[in-house]
Each structure stands twice: as C-alpha cells, then as structure tokens.
C-alpha cells in the first residue's frame, strides 16, 4: 500500500504526527524567546 493522502497517514499514525507537530511548535516557541532575549539585550 502506498498513500499520499495525509488524512490517512494521520489516522494511522496520530501519535507520531502530533508529537512531531508539538516538537516543531516547541522549537519555534523557543526561537521566539531567544529572539526576544537578544532584542532586549541589544536595547
């Protein structure tokens, strides 16, 4: 079986998919914090 349908994939692997999304959100949030910290330091 091959599938290019993302909904099928998410339904079959919800843990992997949502963990991945959560991981991405965490990194982006950390980056925003680091940028904020740098801007504050540069003031």
């Amino acid at each position, binding site marked *: 079986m091959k599938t290019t349908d993302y909904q099928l994939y998410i339904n079959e692997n919800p843990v992997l998919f949502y963990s991945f999304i959560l991981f991405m959100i965490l990194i*982006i949030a950390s980056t925003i914090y*680091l940028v904020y910290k740098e801007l504050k330091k540069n003031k």
Partner: protein
Amino acid sequence: MKRNYRGYLYFYIHFVVEVVCFFYLSRITSNSMFVWMIPFIYDGLAFVPQSLIGYISDKYPKINMGIIGTLMLLTSYILFSFTKINDLVTLIILCLGNAFLHIEGAEITLKSAQGRLSPSAIFVSGGSFGVVIGRLLATTGILPWVLIILILSMLPFVLLARRDWNKNASTKDFNYVKEDLSKPLVIFIAVLVVIIRGYMGYGIPTSWNKTVIELIIFYFTMGIGKALGGILSDYFGIQKVAVLSTLLAIPFLCFGDNIMIISLIGVMLFSMTMSITLAILVSVLKRTPGLAFGLTTIGLFLGTAPIFFIKVSMEINIAIIILFSCLCSLALKYVLKEDTS
C-alpha cells in the same frame, strides 16, 4: 586566505549536502508506505532546529558544526547502506546533519563577508544544484554507500573554510535596515517574506517542466537566481534589487506556465530575494547570525507546510502570486535603507 573563498567552499558543501539528502529522500519515498509523511518530516527536522543550533553556534563559535554535520550525514548513510535500521532513525540523523552543515555555512560566510551579501548568496545557491542532482542519481542503479565517498569529500572543504578564520569575527557591517524601525516588526516582515517565498516556490505554474533536462534547467536557474541576488545587491544596492526583482518576476511567473524561457526568467528573478531577507535579519540580529539564519529556515518550513495539506487551482495560484509578490515588494521597500550607490 586574502580573498574570500568561503562562499565557494560552502557552495560545494551545500551542493553535496543536498545531493545526499535528496538521493536518500527519493530512495526511501520510492520504497516507503507513507510517501506523504517523509518529505514533511524532512522539511521540519532539517529546517526548524537550525535556529537553536545557530544560537548555540553563535554562543560557542569554537565548535565546528560542519564536522558534527558531516559525521551525522556519514552515520546516517552507513546505517542506511549497511543495516536494516528503521528509516525514521536514519532520516532524523540525516536531517540534523543537514541542519548543522547549513548553520556552519551561514556563520562562516556571513562573518567573513564584511557586510557583503555575495558569499552567503553563493553558499545558499549550491543547494538548488544539489537537489536536482540528488533526485536524478536516485533514479540510477547507484548504491547508497557510493555517496559516502561524496560525504567524505566535504571534510577538506569544511576544514579549509575555518583556516585563518577569526572566530571573533562579527556581522556588524550588515546595516541594511532603516534604523528608526521597530526591530520586532522588521523581523516579522522578513520572516513573512520568507514564508511567502517558500509557499510560492512550490506554487509556480510550470506545465512546461516535463523532461529530465527541463527539471535540471529549472533547478539550475533557481540556483543562479539565488547567487545573482547577492552579487547584484553588492553592485547595485540591496533595495533596488529586492524591489525590482520581486515586481519584475510577476508577469514572467504568471505567463510562463507553458513557455519555458519566460518561466525561467521569472524563477531567476523570484529567487533573488533569498540572500536579501537573510541580510535584513542579520542587520537586526547582528550578534547572532546563526539565529538569524535559523529564522529564515523556520520561515521556509512555515511557507512550504501548507503545500502538504492544501491544493489550490491554477487561477487562485496566479492571484496568490500577484498579491503576495506586490506585498513582498512593498514590505522590502519599507524595511530596507535607500541605496547609497
């Protein structure tokens, strides 16, 4: 090194990185049950962590991220070639190796550039050539372990790029942004432009692109455009190149669906803003160029992510290209200083 050859050294390194990554991606997606998820995970894991790796590199410039990245690519390929380990494990190691090498390239080319855009633009352009060569190699009978030789060939380049390099060099000469503007706003605008470019990169209508030769020409033009963006900005001024290339690209992108040469002119013009958005972010985050580079890669991920979920019609696509290009052009004009030359 009296002249700055580091952009060319990292052009080769970036080329090899993309060859091995896209060879691997093309091979595992042809065998995998889940074609959709692998490119999505690759985009996320190769692009997003670059901000954190970049920040560590900014704080500890003595760490050679290039060596770490090369070793990771090597490990990934050894596991991929000689073991039956889960594809997800080798994919994660490969993505992180890719991220480490990108950050080293950005740090070295930006810090040695003395405020010029061309070294980082030349470094960035290498990737486009590598993507298409990697994809084509994957369609041949070549065995994965052969690419280990290619990975090892990066080592002298990684070491040479650090030779005579001042680890305390900075990016203080990057001053392309109007000083009276709010820095968070400038960062927001630059990342937004990257997101739009990332989205449009996948949405350009190219019905003409059907044969292998046309695919090669398409990616090579993209690479040349990225390099030219930096080189022309150094000669004619960043604001002129940013605004003109974004606006001039619109008709070529919209009407080039069936005519290769028109489309290629659009692709080249459209790719020119790549190094310009990086220069904007470095101008604001002078002490942390690695973090600034990581912001552009996060923008690329956010721009390409919708493509995995949404498909739009050609008419809507053309409307998006026109609207977004005008928006980018205005945003860049608003943020960038007037050119002095």
